[in-house]
């Protein structure tokens, strides 16, 4: 059966159609959910896509966490539903306290748009369940604030609990411990800076993101079957 994925749209979000396109190419069905919505309409999984939610004003993700839809996203996460935040979506999830830590400006203080290599560190997340640890993926990054930081206690916890999902092979932005993506305790909420949807077609340079999006769809199907 087809998984239903809600894609959250804030004013300023710009990757929503790309995520929808890539998930639909893999057989998923998607629905755009505007930030004022108070319900996810029974979706099996949620993606908070990239862009500049609320213009990134004040601080990336800082205003988005107050949008009504985030309450529904938090409830979905608390119920064990898959939630993936990509790039700006990752920043929003950290601001909303669904994931620990924060994303600072890149070392070098420049916006960076390039394809980098990332290593999958664990299969224990909704985004990597179908990928063997150690697999290296070529994924595009596209951010000014991708430099992950957290306190030592959190870092120790992330390592001990196998919650570092992706690491950069050659750290482009100064992120702590080369972290490109992390998960929550249960592995159902994942945030990552690289854009898997931009690596979903060999014509555009890489299809390495497909395994990640497929894992998410599998998790969504599993959830819909359990319901």
């Amino acid at each position: 059966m087809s998984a239903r994925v809600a894609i959250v749209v804030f004013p300023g979000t710009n990757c929503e159609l790309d995520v929808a396109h890539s998930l639909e190419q893999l057989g998923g069905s998607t629905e755009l959910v505007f930030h004022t919505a108070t319900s996810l309409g029974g979706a099996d999984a949620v993606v908070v896509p990239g862009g500049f939610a609320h213009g990134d004003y004040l601080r990336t993700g800082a205003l988005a966490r107050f949008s009504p839809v985030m309450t529904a996203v938090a409830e979905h996460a608390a119920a064990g539903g898959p939630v993936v935040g990509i790039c700006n979506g990752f920043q929003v999830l950290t601001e909303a306290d669904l994931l620990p830590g924060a994303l600072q400006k890149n070392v070098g203080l420049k916006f960076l748009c390039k394809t980098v290599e990332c290593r999958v560190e664990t299969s224990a997340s909704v985004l990597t369940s179908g990928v063997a640890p150690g697999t290296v993926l070529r994924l595009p990054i596209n951010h000014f604030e991708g430099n992950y930081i957290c306190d030592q206690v959190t870092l120790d916890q992330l390592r001990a609990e196998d919650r570092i999902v992706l690491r950069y092979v050659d750290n482009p932005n100064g992120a702590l411990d080369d972290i490109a993506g992390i998960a929550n305790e249960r592995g159902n909420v994942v945030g990552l800076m690289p854009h898997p949807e931009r690596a979903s077609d060999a014509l555009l340079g890489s299809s390495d993101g497909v395994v990640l999006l497929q894992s998410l769809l599998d998790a969504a199907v599993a959830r819909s079957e359990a319901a």
Partner: protein
Amino acid sequence: MSAEAIHRQLGLTDDELGDIDGLLGRSPSELELAMYAVMWSEHCSYKSSKVHLRRFPTEAPWVLVGPGEGAGVIDVGDGLAVAVRIESHNHPSAVEPYQGAATGVGGIIRDVFSMGARPIALMDPLRFGPLDDAHTRYLFEGVVSGISGYGNSVGVPTVGGEVVFDDCYRDNPLVNVFCLGLLPKERLVLALAEGEGNLAVLLGSSTGRDGIGGASVLASAGFEEGSEAKRPSVQVGDPFEEKRLIEACLALLDANLAVGVQDLGAAGLSCAASETAAKGGAGMDVDVARVVKREPGMNPVEVMTSESQERMLAIVEPRHLDEVLALCEKWEIRATVAGRVTDTGRFRVYEGLFDAIGVAGSNPTPPPGDTAPEVSSDREPIADLPCDSLGDGPVYTRPLEPPASQAGLQAADPWAELESRFSAGADLSDELLALLATPTIADKSWVWSQYDHQLFLNTVVGPGGDAAVLRLKGTPRALALATDGKGRFCRLDPRTGGRLVVLEAARNVACVGGDPRALVNCLNFGNPEHPEVMWQFQEVVEGMSEACEALGIPVIGGNVSFYNESRGADIDPTPVVGVVGLIDDLRDAPPTPRTVEREHMVLLGETRAELGGSEWASVLHGLDGGIPPEADLDAATRLHAFVRDLVTERSVGGVHDCSDGGVAVALAEMAFGGEVGFQVTPDVALPAAVWSFSESANRVLVSVDARPLPQVLKRAEDAGVLAVDLGVADGDRLIVEGAIDVPLADAERAWRDAIPTALGAVAPAS
């Protein structure tokens, strides 16, 4: 102060004031005078260029909208159309590089979505002074940050462009911005205000004092010392506002809620309101009391000429107003009825009228410090003029004369001087390394890695290729986009230079398999009051037109930027073109500029002793005279068709346009792309230095496997294209026999590190 003094201060001549008196049958009011001044400025009226621009060929069966609208539009099949425009933001960027570039991006995007198109690609052709100058570095970094900051945030990918460094742009950088949008053909809208009683709804930002007289003050006069004082005329951009405006306007057009939409750009509300009405053959009443102001104390002149960014004017039938307001509320966009369409043919401005005559909506709360204007039903207009008179400005046929120095300049052939320094057998290895490190040739990834170039999942070839390639999702087709310009060639011979610019962009499009369908141009020139500049202008337009006719490319839009000068010196005449090509069937990515191990490097096209205006002679050796390469239009037509065939069939492993720095540089760039060196034999009929660095036009390098090679050479002969097998790609050195031998890694480092090193981002190699 006398009225004469005011009109001159506003940039109007005495004769122009006389024309205004004649049009009105009386002396203009202060507001009328201010509106004529901005609308009749060089920037808005094209008064010096109009007579020449008529020369451009503009027609082809696939052209849906030609020059004169917000953007040109062509049919690309399957019910899809693309809207294209290019514009300059040179003067604002010289004064304040970040905001100047950012608002340039914002303005061009509005032009494109005002046609009903979703903007899907930007390209930025940029020109600066020498990079060893601190002020140039400030401008360069500021402009790139501005494009990155605005373009990324507004959500339109920047898929290409170019950066050129030359002394003539030292105090006057050229910041040109190209934007392409995609639309279903049926959504195409023109900025027409039709239907008496329809409402003019102002969307987006509030109106402030920023950018007042921007077009007339900044873009229509030269720069002198103290240009910082003009900084208040540069607007400030808000990409988040613009992003929401895009979504709101496209939703509005999708739902058929607007008759027309127009951007508020140069000359602000004066231009948008009068132009939409004039095009619709109607009239327009505007009430300045209805405009939301950002600051207290703004007078009607300021409101009508403000160039505050992120504003649009939508013409809406009254029955749709509630739906329009609801849609704008969803996207958190301000929407106020500021005017209405009449059948008078007059453009009338009032202050505090509409509440009294029952136009929907109410006056906005004035900014703190202001009191609400009185509302009255029998107010006299504070401006009342024929709608079309603002847009139909004066047309000048300015005097033309070749510069006195032209003949001497052309006679100074650089080879006469260089021959003694680079006699037969001279080692040219260091020359190649130095050329690769000149900022114009060096790797630009420092620039484009700051631009989102992938959004929307269309970018098959992004920045750094000969042309950008964007797939058209849902069809087998793709678009090929290239921008090019070469002021040095145009300075030496503007007519030939004009031809060469068109040929190079079309050749780049051919290198990815594209067939050129449309051209837009941004004509950056000096002071039109100098007869030498107008002569250059006319010659360039003539040369471009000849090339467009020969290649069958219609010109669908353009922009003229005059007064590019500083300290009394005009810039080199610099036409910049954007060419849009169509690729019929894109199944996989086209070959890129690269070497392929053991494949043969084949040079298509003829190499002649043409060093005039070349990077090697002009930049490395300071010899900037001579004549530019020959621009043979028939040879170009044959070459482009042949290259397009080879690329379409995928019978080449790599392909690269041969231009700046000549064949040696093009070969080196292919080696960087393929990570394989080469060993080639130069043409014995030419001195090795000439063969290596001449910038003869109409040449393309291809990499061909040994098996199909004889066939490819034979087909080239049949197609009337000279093809020479130069040698084989192999190893890790770049070797031109008898002249150049450098390790690939050294050459690549010189090319890759030049710009970051100049900016202090990488320590210089010891």
